[in-house]
């Protein structure tokens, strides 16, 4: 079971934060196929958020095929969701760690690090407005 957390001033909609946290937990192997997500009631009580927001997030994950809702029972991680290969994650993490050390040595603080990383991952930095 995982616990969700919210960053209230991030500008990322609440439902999307939940979606992202489930995706990440599955990719990193924290959640396995068959694992149950917290019930809507549990998330509402833990985070003081609107149940419609939780339902919206779970519906989105269901559409993606990442989870499956079983009526009256709960929401479960779907089978056939291989996490990232643990060995690759380990290798990548250690080379990223070396990169972070070099960047710090070059005088970048955490904010600069995050900005540089985000900018590299997403080369076109034009924001969209819906």
């Amino acid at each position, binding site marked *: 079971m995982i616990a969700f957390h919210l960053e209230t001033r991030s*500008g990322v909609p609440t439902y999307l934060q939940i979606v992202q946290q489930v995706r990440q937990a599955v990719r990193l192997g924290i959640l396995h196929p068959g694992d149950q997500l917290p019930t*809507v009631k549990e998330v509402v*009580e833990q985070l*003081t*958020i609107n*149940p*419609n927001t939780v339902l919206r997030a779970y519906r989105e994950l269901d559409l993606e095929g990442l989870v499956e809702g079983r009526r009256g029972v709960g929401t479960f991680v779907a089978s056939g969701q291989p996490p990232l290969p643990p060995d690759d994650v380990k290798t990548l993490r250690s080379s990223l760690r070396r990169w972070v050390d070099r960047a710090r040595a070059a005088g970048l603080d955490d904010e600069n690090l995050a900005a540089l990383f985000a900018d590299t991952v997403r080369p076109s930095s034009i924001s969209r*407005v819906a």
Partner: protein
Amino acid sequence: MSDSPALETAALGKRYASNWALHDCELSIPTGSVTALVGPNGAGKTTLLQLAVGLIEPTTGTIAVLGHDPRSEPLAVLPRVGFVAQDHPLPRRFTIAETLRLGRELNPSWDDAVAERRIDELGLSRRQRVGTLSGGQQAQVALTLALAKQPQLLLLDEPVASLDPLARREFLTGVLQAVTETGITVVLSSHIVTDLERVCDRLIILADGRTQLVGPIEDILAGHRLLTGPRTTAAGVARVHEVIRESHTERQTTLLVRANGHVYDADWELHEVDLEEIVLAYLGQTSDTMRAAVAR
């Protein structure tokens, strides 16, 4: 869940002497939603809620609550509406047991199990007098009375204004538990914007007796952006987007806009804005984060 709105107004207005407390109000609140009614003191929030329960009569227009006029058909409305007035007034000398008994006697649809369970969960003794409870506990008892009526619509007038942050969270959690369990429609007024983004799915901004902005919070967040750029006038941007607020320093201009479609403009840096920022912009105030964005 029915398709007709839980609360609907048309050209609704209320005038006291020469002062319009509410003017030309057009609203439709969907069944099952949790709506925040936001605005400074005196904006018309209480007036709207009092009109919804028929405590006062409209000067112009109409209001329908659960499909009925609260003034001409009170019996079709009042038993199905839970109302917690500002400062949740309860008889202070009553014990909790006596308070629950009062609720049971006054409300035909009263559900004892709901009331008893909530009092147990709050860890309160039935012998305690209401006047000896903390502000947060009194608010929770008032909420218990409203919920045990098993209403379809819950109206809360500034329920958390006088509560500390922890009591505020606990109260809102109680409201959301009821939403989860019964799908009740909620309208809560507040001049405190904190927590509303996570609790509510719709927003109404009221100022000077008029609605300034109405809609789903998600759409509101997606539709507003903060633009920063070299000092200029807002005229160019204003041709395409609605400029809600502009501010200038010697070298920089900051605009909060309601975007009309996509913003692609190399002259401006775009930032997302949180709900508090948007509310403050509509209410014509300047907050610290805004100044920080300008200074950056």
